[in-house]
C-alpha cells in the first residue's frame, strides 16, 4: 500500500519537516518515522491482571503484573482464593480424621502428603510401621511422584506452545494413577495410611502390573527427552529464563527439584530423617548447575526415571510380613512436639505437630512446598518478558492447594 509523495512532515530530530539531504523511499521514511514515534512515545506502566484462572496456575493464582511495554517491572502474586484453613481444622479433629484433610493439600500427590504426618504421629506414639508397610509407603510415594512429574513433563511443553507432550503426559499418568487406584481405591485422595501401618496390602498381581508400567514410564521418559528436551524451540523458550541463584533460592525456602536445578545437592529422601527405607536401594540425586527453566525440566525428567527405577528395586526387595503394627484402639498421642519433613514431589513438605496428650493435635504447622517456591516469584519475574511469565510459572510447578492450604 503506497501512499504517494504527499507525506506529512515527519517528526525527526532537527525540527519538523527538516529532512536530511538524502533521497529516501517514502514508504521507508514513514516506517522510520513510526519507529521514532514508538521510541519517543511515553508508554506509561500498564497493570496486567493474570488469573485467577489460568491453565498455568493449577488452580487460582492471580498475578498482578506491572508492565513497561513487554517487560515486567513488578509482579505481585495474590493468593488465598483456595484457603481452607487446614491448620485451624486440624485442631478440631482426631489424628485419623486429619489424613483426610491433608490429602487435599497437594492433590496431585496426596499419598506423599499423608506420610510425614502419619510418621510424626507414629514417632510421638513410639510406634513403628512394619517393614512391608514402609516399603509399600515408599512405592506409593514414588508412584505419586511419577504421576505428578509426568503431568509436569507434558504440561510444561503445553505452556511453551507444544501440545503433543501434554497428551503423552496425561496418557502415561493415567497408567500410574490406575496403579494407585488399584491399591488404595482412590485416584486422587487415597487416605490409605493408618497410624502404625496401612489400610490394606497390595492386591493380587499388582507387582507385575507395576513392573510393566514402570518400563512404560521409562520409555516415555525417553520419548519426552527426544520430543521436548531436544527441541530447539523449547530450548530457546526455557534456556536462561527464570534463573534462581542457589543461595537466594535457599533463603526464600525454595526446595525440591527447583533448588536441585540450581545445583544444590540436597534431597530429603537421602539427607532427611529416615522415615522410609530409601537407604536400602540404589539411587542417585540429580542436580543441574544452570538454575533456569530448562534445568528444572531436565531435573524432573531425570527424577521421574530415577523414581521408576526405585519402584522396580523396591518391588524386588519387598519383605513379606504384616502391614499393621499393634496400635491402641483409641489413638491418643502423648505430649510432645515433633517436626517431620519429607521430600514431596513439589519440595519439602513438613508438619510440626504439637501434641498435649489428647486424641487430636494441639497445633499443626503445615509447611507446604509450593508456598515457599512461589514466594520467590516477585523477585524472579522482575525484568522478564510477558510470555516468559508463563514459562516460569510452569517450570516452578506448584499446586494451588499446596500454596493456600
Amino acid at each position, binding site marked *: 500500500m503506497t501512499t504517494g509523495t504527499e507525506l506529512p512532515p515527519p517528526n525527526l530530530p532537527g525540527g519538523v519537516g527538516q529532512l536530511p539531504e538524502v533521497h529516501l523511499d517514502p514508504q521507508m521514511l514513514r516506517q522510520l518515522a513510526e519507529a521514532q514515534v514508538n521510541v519517543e512515545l511515553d508508554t506509561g506502566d500498564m497493570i496486567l491482571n493474570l488469573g485467577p484462572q489460568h491453565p498455568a496456575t493449577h488452580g487460582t493464582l492471580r498475578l498482578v503484573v506491572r508492565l513497561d511495554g513487554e517487560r515486567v517491572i513488578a509482579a505481585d502474586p495474590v493468593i488465598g482464593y483456595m484457603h481452607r484453613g487446614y491448620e485451624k481444622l486440624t485442631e*478440631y479433629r482426631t489424628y485419623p480424621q486429619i489424613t483426610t484433610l491433608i490429602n487435599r493439600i497437594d492433590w496431585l500427590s496426596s499419598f506423599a502428603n499423608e506420610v510425614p504426618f502419619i510418621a510424626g504421629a507414629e514417632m510421638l506414639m513410639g510406634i513403628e510401621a512394619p517393614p512391608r508397610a514402609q516399603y509399600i509407603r515408599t512405592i506409593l510415594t514414588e508412584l505419586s511422584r511419577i504421576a505428578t512429574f509426568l503431568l509436569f513433563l507434558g504440561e510444561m511443553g503445553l505452556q511453551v506452545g507444544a501440545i503433543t507432550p501434554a497428551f503423552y503426559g496425561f496418557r502415561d499418568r493415567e497408567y500410574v494413577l490406575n496403579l494407585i487406584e488399584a491399591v488404595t481405591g482412590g485416584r486422587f485422595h487415597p487416605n490409605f495410611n493408618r497410624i502404625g501401618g496401612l489400610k490394606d496390602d497390595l492386591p493380587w498381581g499388582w507387582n507385575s502390573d507395576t513392573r510393566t508400567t514402570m518400563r512404560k514410564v521409562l520409555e516415555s521418559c525417553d520419548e519426552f527427552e527426544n520430543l521436548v528436551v531436544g527441541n530447539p524451540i523449547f530450548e530457546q523458550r526455557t534456556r536462561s529464563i527464570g534463573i534462581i541463584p542457589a543461595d537466594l533460592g535457599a533463603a526464600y525456602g525454595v526446595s525440591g527439584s527447583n533448588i536441585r536445578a540450581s545445583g544444590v545437592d540436597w534431597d530429603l529422601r537421602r539427607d532427611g530423617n529416615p522415615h522410609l527405607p530409601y537407604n536400602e536401594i540404589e539411587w542417585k540425586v540429580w542436580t543441574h548447575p544452570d538454575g533456569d527453566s530448562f534445568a528444572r525440566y531436565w531435573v524432573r525428567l531425570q527424577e521421574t526415571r530415577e523414581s521408576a527405577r526405585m519402584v522396580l528395586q523396591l518391588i524386588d526387595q519387598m519383605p513379606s510380613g504384616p502391614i499393621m503394627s499393634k496400635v491402641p484402639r483409641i489413638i491418643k498421642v502423648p*505430649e510432645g512436639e515433633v517436626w517431620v519433613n519429607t521430600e514431596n514431589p513439589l519440595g519439602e513438605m513438613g508438619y510440626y505437630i504439637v501434641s498435649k496428650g489428647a486424641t487430636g493435635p494441639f497445633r499443626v504447622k503445615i509447611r507446604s512446598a509450593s508456598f515457599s517456591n512461589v514466594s520467590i516469584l516477585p523477585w524472579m519475574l522482575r525484568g522478564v518478558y510477558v510470555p516468559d511469565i508463563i514459562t516460569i510459572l510452569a517450570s516452578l510447578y506448584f499446586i494451588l492447594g499446596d500454596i493456600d492450604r
Partner: protein
Amino acid sequence: MPGAEVEATESSVAEATASTIVESGALDDAATQMLARLEAELGDAIVEHGATYGDVVVRVRPDAWRRTATFCKEELGCDYLSFVSAIDWMPTPAIVDEGSGDTSTPAQPKETTYGVAGSGGRFQVFAIVASTRGAHQRVVLKTDLDDAQPHIESWVPVYPGADWHERETWEMFGIVFDGHPALRHLYLPFEFEGHPLRKDYPLLAREVKPWPGLVDVEPMPGEDSDDTDAAAVEAS
C-alpha cells in the same frame, strides 16, 4: 496371597527392620556441636534449650531474635528457611459439654502447659532453619512475645523468604513483625477482622451446626434405655 510374588529372604527382612525410631531427648554429635556454637555465640540470650526427636530446640530472648537468624545463616550455614510461624499456648476452649457424649472434637487439657524448651507466655513465634549443604543440620528456634501486644523483629532482611510467612503469621495470630516491608493480608480478604489461628477465635462452622457425623448415630443395641422396639418384642 499378597506377598506371594516377592522372594524375600530372611536376611533382607532383618535388614529392613533396622529401627528408625529416634529417642525423644537424644541428640547426635553434629546437633550437640551446633548447640554448643549457638550457646557460645548467643550466651545468655538463650533462655532455654531442649531436644525433640533429634532436633535442637532453642528458645531465645525476643531482642536476640534477628541476631539469632543472622548467626544461623552466616555462621552455622543454615542458609535455608523452612518456615516462620507461631503457637498460641492458651488452652483450647471446650466447645462441647463434658459428659454429653459428643466426641466430635478432641478434648484438650484445660491447664496451660508449654512444649519443648518452654514458653514465657501465651504467644510464641517459632521457625525452622536448615542447611542445604554439608551435614544438612537444622534447628528449631523459638521466642516469647508480649501477650497484650505481640510484636517481634522481622526476619525479612536476613531471609527474604520470611516475607510471606510473616504476613501469614500476622493475619492468623495478630503478631506484628517490626521492620517487615508490607504487612498485608495474604490469605484472608482485606476487610477480615480477627485472627483465626488464635485459640479464642471460634471455629464458626462448628458453632452454628453440630458435627454432621453426630446426627445420624444410631444407638448401639442394648445401649439406649428407652428402647421401644425391644420392649415391644418382649411384650409380644
